[in-house]
């Protein structure tokens, strides 16, 4: 640990000021609402267009609603928030920018593909811990149809996807980080870009699994913790295949996570043939955390969670030019006060 006591190991940040996750809100589409986590989400929309004229506008509205709801649930006013740290999957992250257009606080626009939510939480915790803010919002969104039309095919095009494919979730999640009550963000481990040469754009799970394994391993190295310290280590959207690969990669490095390892992409949907390997997208980890994990933390059913959001940092153009799919994963440790246990 360095003199200021705010860094540990090579990639992990420590938050001695104990920034708290004061509240969280999730707004999801109908498919997510009818999935296994449906009852935990704050708002379930009846359709993915919200009666608006484009899916992009629907995503903007869902994101804005999640942010405002999170602020309201924290017992704050919009004027109390000092920054929005937010990203999405659209070109030039327009969902975030357009949602922030309606909000009275500054925007820090982020792009980390599907790792964006934890990227935002890490930066938000830094701002609060560093006393640059008393309350910020970290948020992220994704939308199945906006992602399909940008990254893949027109939504009405008949396309048979391979079994390794995943389904982009329609969801937005937001959390308020501040000095108030709530589980603490104790550590953040920022991830390196890890590229293991995956090229199949229909298989994000195997592209991101090495990055997830790397960040989890690095987090445990840096903090000196064992996997069993956490009640739950939850990756963002590896899906069934990526989850399996990640666990195998960790096992080869001597880490057994089989007892407490979950993936938001595997939790959010029932495994219908349409969904293939599970959910993906920025909104997947954001809504699962803000909707489900945060409630479990508040109820004390979970006390120590390591949230590892995973992203694939390619663009449609880069993969057409033959570039491989670089993966990234950021991790934050969220722990109930007094439940951190012994840490170095």
């Amino acid at each position, binding site marked *: 640990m360095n003199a200021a006591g705010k860094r540990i190991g090579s990639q992990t940040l420590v938050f001695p000021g104990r920034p708290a996750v004061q509240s969280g809100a999730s707004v999801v589409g109908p498919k997510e609402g009818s999935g296994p986590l449906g009852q935990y989400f704050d708002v379930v929309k009846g359709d993915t267009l919200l009666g608006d*004229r*484009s899916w992009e506008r629907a995503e903007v509205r869902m994101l804005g609603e999640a942010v405002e709801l999170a602020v309201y649930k924290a017992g704050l006013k919009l004027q109390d928030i000092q920054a929005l740290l937010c990203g999405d999957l659209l070109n030039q992250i327009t969902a975030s920018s357009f949602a922030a257009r309606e909000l009275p606080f500054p925007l820090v626009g982020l792009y980390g593909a599907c790792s964006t939510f934890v990227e935002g939480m890490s930066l938000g915790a830094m701002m609060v811990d560093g006393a640059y803010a008393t309350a910020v919002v970290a948020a992220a969104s994704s939308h199945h149809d906006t992602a399909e*039309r940008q990254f893949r*095919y*027109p*939504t*009405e*095009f*008949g*396309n*048979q*996807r*391979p*079994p*390794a494919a995943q389904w982009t979730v329609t969801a937005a999640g937001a959390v308020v980080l501040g000095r108030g009550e709530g589980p603490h963000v104790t550590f953040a481990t920022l991830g390196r870009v890890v*590229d*293991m*040469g*995956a090229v199949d754009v229909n*298989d994000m799970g*195997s592209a991101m699994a*090495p990055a997830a394994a790397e960040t989890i391993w690095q987090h445990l190295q840096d903090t000196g913790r064992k996997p069993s310290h956490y009640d739950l280590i939850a990756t963002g959207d590896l899906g069934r*295949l990526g989850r*399996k*690969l990640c666990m*195998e*990669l960790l096992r080869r490095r001597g880490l057994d996570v089989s007892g407490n390892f979950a993936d938001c992409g595997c939790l959010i949907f029932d495994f219908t*043939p*349409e969904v293939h*390997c599970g959910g993906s997208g920025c909104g997947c980890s954001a809504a699962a955390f803000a909707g489900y994990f945060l409630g479990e933390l508040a109820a004390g059913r979970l006390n120590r969670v390591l949230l590892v959001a995973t992203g694939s940092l390619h663009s449609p153009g880069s993969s057409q030019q033959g570039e491989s799919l670089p993966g990234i994963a950021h991790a934050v440790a969220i722990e109930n006060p007094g439940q951190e246990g012994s840490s170095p």
Partner: protein
Amino acid sequence: MSKANRRQAAAYQRMVNRTTPKRPLARNLFWAFVVGGSICLVGQVVLAAIVAMGDLTPKEASTPTVGVMIFLGALFTGLGLYDRLAPLAGMGANLPITGFANSMVSPAMEFRREGFVLGVSARMFTVAGPVIVHAVTTAVMVGFIQYVLGK
């Protein structure tokens, strides 16, 4: 990528290949046959109907039949049904002329929000464009060979 990293990446890709679920080939072939075959059966019925009603030879009736099938493909795309067929049927839905209609109409629908000229008109060929290019090129080549060989 360094040599060590390349080796590591290759080892990982082998692990991925072992773990990745395989396409259910038998099921895919079965449904491609059933759905593709059914579409062709509809086409055959349309052809027979046109032959009977229009007093045309089957050869003369083939062009209006294609027109009807394109219309049906476009209609079912517009109704939001064609894209539900394809995940099951795969090439059985993509290969018949109805699939071609789907590949034209779906981007036209998708990009109407970007306007009629730069949206619908410009993006209409994003899926079908490469198919048209290669089909026309192949047709020209085959036609040339036919000409050289004197039929």
